């Protein structure tokens, strides 16, 4: 090889190296400019998208696994203005299928995106599946047509529908006072109101998560699965709830009452089996709330409405008297028909004097004078200590939103008078909610143990089911006292051949007729008629509380509420598979089935 050729090769090599070096340096320089960094930053937007995923709201089931609250698919319909090629066709189809205004849709469809106009415009939301099927059929039909020559085929490009969840309550008004409702029309800020939807709002809603959806398949290292909200399984039995609501509606109509409440309760574990109130809202149409519940109508009177319970309260007074050792069932009392205390005179319900009576007869004849004597003999300290141990000075803490209570007047309070010690003993001058009464009285039906009332039996969290253990909130009386009092109440019902008796079943119970306070004193014609009872007496499986507000056919609980109790329990024992005493006690060691 000659020298000149070698030189030429060398020159070419040097030139190539210099050019390659310049290109390399330029590449490095360009990659580190501000513009390159901006480009890199901008490219992040094209690698994926961050979306906030709202989990499906948890379902609610009754104790047998029947759906009370769930979710279904509904659709948002919108216009992607960049994709619309035939605004008239889009407007025409959207107007005819969705029932919207043609001119308005056409106006949106003809807008040019940008310059303040959005790229996407929402036309309608919560559209049903049927309408989407209709739109899909039209779209498929347009897509299947073939153009002849220069013919322009119709299309609805740019009309989009996006699926999302909608809260639904398949049982409509059934148990709506317990469920509450969820304001599902607000898709990002919806919250639960009243009942379980309020009490368990955050658990049912789950935790919204910001999830990165990568467009680059290689960046999908894990599937980001957002767990759904907590599923609730209740102590409530739908069949018993339906029957209870039916009986309540019939009772209100029959008695001419202004309203009412019936509670069916499991005294052994504090589970609410049924809780019926009136009126009831269809939570699927929760916007009708204000119309159906004008102030001050409570959404769920069983936990939100306080009233003077009247003579059903005597169960608690007698429990305190027996438990404190003041009396026993055979203790005699001379009823003179009047009892003076604090400058006032207490009379019996019929203004009569019942003479020599024992404690069972005090309950059987519902004697105010006898009860006043018991409370004053116990003294305020003992009496109110018992009332507090029955939980009457606080809310029960039931797992429903909207519970309220009325403060218990105690000695030393400015509003407490000596006469209250007597009137409180027979359920006047004291305001309580039905659930407070039920919780307190259930201790008598449950060997002196008082359980926390609750609706939720179990929860499913992230694919695992957690049972909710019953909670003992106190032992206000001894088991022996509870058994003694139950027997006394069984006897008192049987002795008076009460309207509350249920053929074949031993039940314990007490009527109540509470006078209603007005600005001018207690009304003689308007009362709260109530009845509390439980059974089977030797092993209670249910406790039923009936309250009818201002009945017109009779003011007496024994004539209005007691028959409702009997009627309801005769259905309840069938639904709960509780055999009559003759079968159950004969084979008490054997399990029976219906």
């Amino acid at each position, binding site marked *: 090889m000659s020298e000149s050729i070698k030189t030429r090769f060398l020159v070419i090599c040097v030139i190539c190296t210099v050019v390659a070096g310049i290109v390399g340096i330029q590449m490095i320089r360009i990659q580190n400019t501000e513009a390159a960094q901006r480009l890199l930053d901008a490219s992040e937007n094209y690698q994926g998208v961050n979306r906030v995923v709202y989990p*499906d709201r948890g*379902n609610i*089931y009754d*104790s*047998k*696994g*029947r*759906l*009370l609250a*769930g*979710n*279904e*698919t509904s659709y948002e319909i919108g216009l992607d203005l960049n994709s619309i090629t035939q605004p008239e066709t889009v407007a025409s189809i959207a107007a005819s299928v969705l029932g919207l205004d043609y001119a308005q849709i056409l106006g949106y469809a003809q807008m040019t995106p940008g310059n303040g106009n959005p790229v996407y415009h929402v036309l309608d939301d919560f559209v049903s*599946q049927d309408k989407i099927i209709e739109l899909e059929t039209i779209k498929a039909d347009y897509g299947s047509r073939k153009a002849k020559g220069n013919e322009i085929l119709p299309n609805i490009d740019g009309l989009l529908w996006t*699926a999302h*969840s909608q809260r*639904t309550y*398949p*049982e*409509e008004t*059934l148990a709506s006072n317990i469920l509450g409702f969820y304001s599902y029309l607000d898709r990002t800020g919806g919250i639960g109101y009243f009942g379980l939807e309020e009490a368990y709002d955050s658990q049912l809603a789950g935790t919204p998560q910001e999830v990165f959806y990568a467009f*680059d*398949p*290689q*960046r*999908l*290292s*894990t*599937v980001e699965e957002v767990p759904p909200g907590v*599923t609730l*399984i209740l102590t409530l039995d*739908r*069949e018993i709830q*339906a029957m209870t609501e039916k009986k309540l509606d019939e009772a209100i109509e029959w008695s001419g009452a202004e309203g009412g409440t019936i509670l069916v309760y499991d005294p052994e574990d504090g589970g609410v089996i049924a809780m019926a109130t009136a009126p009831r809202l269809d939570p699927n149409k929760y916007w009708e709330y204000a119309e159906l519940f004008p102030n001050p109508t409570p959404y769920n009177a069983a936990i939100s409405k306080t009233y003077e319970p009247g003579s059903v309260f005597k169960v608690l007074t007698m429990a305190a008297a027996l438990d404190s050792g003041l009396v026993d069932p055979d203790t005699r009392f001379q009823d003179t028909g009047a009892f003076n205390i604090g400058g006032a005179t207490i009379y019996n319900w019929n203004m009569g004097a019942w003479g020599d009576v024992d404690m069972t007869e005090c309950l059987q004849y519902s004697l105010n004078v006898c009860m006043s004597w018991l409370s004053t003999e116990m003294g305020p300290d003992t009496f109110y200590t018992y009332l507090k141990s029955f939980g009457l000075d606080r809310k029960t803490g039931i797992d429903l939103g909207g519970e309220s209570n009325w403060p218990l007047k105690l000695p030393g309070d400015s509003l407490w008078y000596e006469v209250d010690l007597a009137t409180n003993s027979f359920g006047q001058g004291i305001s309580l909610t039905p659930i407070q009464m039920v919780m307190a009285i259930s201790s008598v039906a449950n060997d002196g143990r008082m359980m926390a009332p609750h609706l939720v*039996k*179990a929860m*499913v969290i992230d*694919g*695992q*089911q*957690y*049972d909710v253990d019953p909670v003992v909130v106190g032992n206000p009386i001894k088991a022996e006292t509870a058994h003694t009092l139950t027997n006394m109440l069984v006897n008192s019902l049987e002795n008076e051949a009460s309207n509350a008796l*249920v*053929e*074949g079943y031993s039940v314990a119970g007490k009527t109540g007729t509470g006078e209603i306070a007005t600005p001018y004193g207690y009304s003689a014609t308007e009362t709260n008629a109530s009845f509390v009872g439980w059974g089977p007496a030797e092993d209670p499986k249910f406790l039923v509380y009936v309250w009818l507000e201002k009945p017109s056919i009779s003011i007496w609980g024994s004539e209005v509420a007691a028959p409702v109790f009997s009627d309801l329990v*005769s*259905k309840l*024992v*069938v639904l709960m*598979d509780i*055999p*009559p005493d003759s*079968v159950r006690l004969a*084979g008490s060691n*054997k*399990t*029976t*089935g*219906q």
Partner: protein
Amino acid sequence: MKKDILQAYKQAPWRVQIQWVGVFLLIVIAVATVAGLYLYISGRSAATGRRIQNLESELATLHRQNNDLETQLGEIQSERALSERINSLNMRSLTIDEALYLEVPGYVPAEGPSFAPPPTIKEERTPILLPEFTNTFIEWIASKLQAGTQSPTPTIEVQP
């Protein structure tokens, strides 16, 4: 011997050129092999990723369909719907007098509904993509070499 070889090369210098060409070809083949492997892995990774995206979409659709079906079932079995069916069939609820109770030795009443298993120790989520799809080539070779020195591990099946 060494002298003979040197002499042979001096007599036929093309042998040296062949050596250089051979080395160059070896490098080219090695680079091509690595590039081919990289392409193969990347292709499979991309295909799997796309499949995952499709399955995610399908999963969301199935979740919604499941919710819809459950709600439809709830409506069909609602108390109101069942009452209407009972009435249309001329049936009515059992009354207290009509209930007949039989002693069934050993009968245990049904427990409440079970929607999910009871709580257990939660398992760690396994990445849905095998390391082969996410490692660099060097990492992959290193992991294979490391695995070779350790006891064999069971194959993990991709379960998106």
